[in-house]
Structure formats: C-alpha cells, structure tokens
C-alpha cells in the first residue's frame, strides 16, 4: 500500500532541454500538424508535452516509488498541466522536481478501498521562475475492487 509518510517529501531535481525535434515527434504522435509545431524554428510545446519529463529523470528518485505506490494495482486517474503564461518553447531549459502533495482514501463502487495519490511537478525556467506545473493523480485499488480489464 502507498506510504502516507511520503507526502510533502520533495524528490530529486532534474534538468530538461526542450527540443525542436522532440516537439515535432510529439505533435505528430498526438495527431497535430499545426504549423506552430512543425514550421516555427522555436516551436511552442504541445499541451501534454511535459510528460516527456520521463526521459530526463532518473527512476531511482521517482517519488511515486518512494511513496510505495503499487503499480500492479495502480491506474492513472487524472493528469493536469498548468502554464503560468505562454507554454515553454524549444531552446528552453527547465528544472523540475516532483512532490507527493496528497494521499486520500475513498470507498470504491465495488466495496474495496481506493487510495488516491497526487504528485505535483514544478517546472522552472533558467531564471528560476515557475512556468508550468503538472498534477498527476493515480489510484491504487485494493484487491476487492479490482477486476475490470
């Protein structure tokens, strides 16, 4: 089961280079041919692009793992991106770190308990300004609530 002691304990800090080719690849993979991605020399990122933080972070410091979330019984429930101004563009270097901000239980429809775990990742630019935030909610079901494929 997820470990509530992990709430508030910040994870490691990583650095991410926002790259033109990666933006092009991501935009095409998510069904967009918008010229802002494909023709601009310094394209803006797609709305869900910051999920590529996966490529820049070391798994050893994953705060979800620190929180002992059981991914055999875990599901991605919600994902949110917030931008404090226009989204970053290619050429930006972002520094990010994640924190488990919340953990709470709910009763599932099938009777089992569900544990929701919220992880917030803050992305800062070279000047240290907060430019974006990702909020990732996963739900861990107890064995009784499982079963649907």
């Amino acid at each position, binding site marked *: 089961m997820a470990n509530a002691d992990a709430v508030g304990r910040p994870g490691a800090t990583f650095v991410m280079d926002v790259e033109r080719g990666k933006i092009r*690849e991501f935009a095409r*993979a998510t069904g967009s041919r918008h010229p802002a991605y494909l023709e601009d020399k310094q394209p*803006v990122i797609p709305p*869900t692009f910051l999920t590529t933080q996966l490529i820049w972070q070391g798994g050893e410091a994953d705060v979800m793992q620190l929180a002992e979330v059981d991914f055999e019984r875990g599901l991605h429930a919600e*994902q949110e991106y917030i931008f404090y101004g226009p989204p970053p563009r290619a050429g930006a270097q972002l520094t990010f770190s994640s924190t488990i901000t919340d953990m709470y239980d709910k009763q599932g429809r099938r009777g089992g308990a569900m544990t929701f775990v919220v992880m917030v990742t803050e992305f800062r630019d070279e000047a240290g300004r907060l430019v974006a935030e990702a*909020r990732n909610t996963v739900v861990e079901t107890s064995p009784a609530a499982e079963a649907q494929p």
Partner: protein
Amino acid sequence: MTGGLLTPPEPSVFGPLTRTDIVRYQGAAGDMQPIHHDEGYARAAGFPSVFSVGMFQAGLLASWAADWLGPENVRSYRARFKEQVWPGDVLTCSGVVAREYEDHGEGRIDLDLVCTRQTGGVAVQAWATFVVPDIG
C-alpha cells in the same frame, strides 16, 4: 467579444487505432510500459490484448483544442481517464465552450472536452483554459 472564433471546429476523428499509433506515442513520450505494445505481456497480465496509453488519447484531445485556439494560448489542461482504449477503436475528439471571461485584462475561454470511442463510451473527459488575445 466576437462570435466566429468561439464556434468550435468539426470534431476530429482518429483511427482505427493501430499498434503503430500506440508505439509511436510511447516513443515520443518516453514511456515504454510493455503492457501497451507487448501482446504476450498484456495477455499474461490478464488483458485480451495490448491497450492504448491514457496520455495518448489525452494528447489527441489536447491537439484538437490547441489546433483550434492556438498552442501558445493554452493555460491549463486537465484530463480524466475513463474507459480503456483498444487497437481498432475509432476516437472522436470534440468540445464546447463552457465560459468566456476576462482575467487580469486577458480574454479567456474555458472548454469542456471529450474523447469518445466508436461505442459512444467516454475514453477521456477534459477541461482546458485558453487565452484568447483578440477579446477582453
């Protein structure tokens, strides 16, 4: 405020979804979780086949909105994952304007978005806020 810009475009239709579409997304995102592309792995875990990545259909839905209102104008996007998406599915992305308002002198628009499967089932429900520079 002007009317024309805020009329949503036609829904986008994607599919039938292939394993290649899923793998292309996984490579782009850096998420190589095998349950989404390794048939043997998915079956051993009790699923009838591989299934799509939630963030893929969330990305398709975000693309529909950002292609309309401009990628540089997005200020928030929140996706809730509902039904699983399978190879062969045809996904339709659309949305409506929930609210137009001003915030700090900027025109803003809130959208209610939905990505549905060919069955009518909802794969992803989402909410987005965009800046609309020409209003406000």
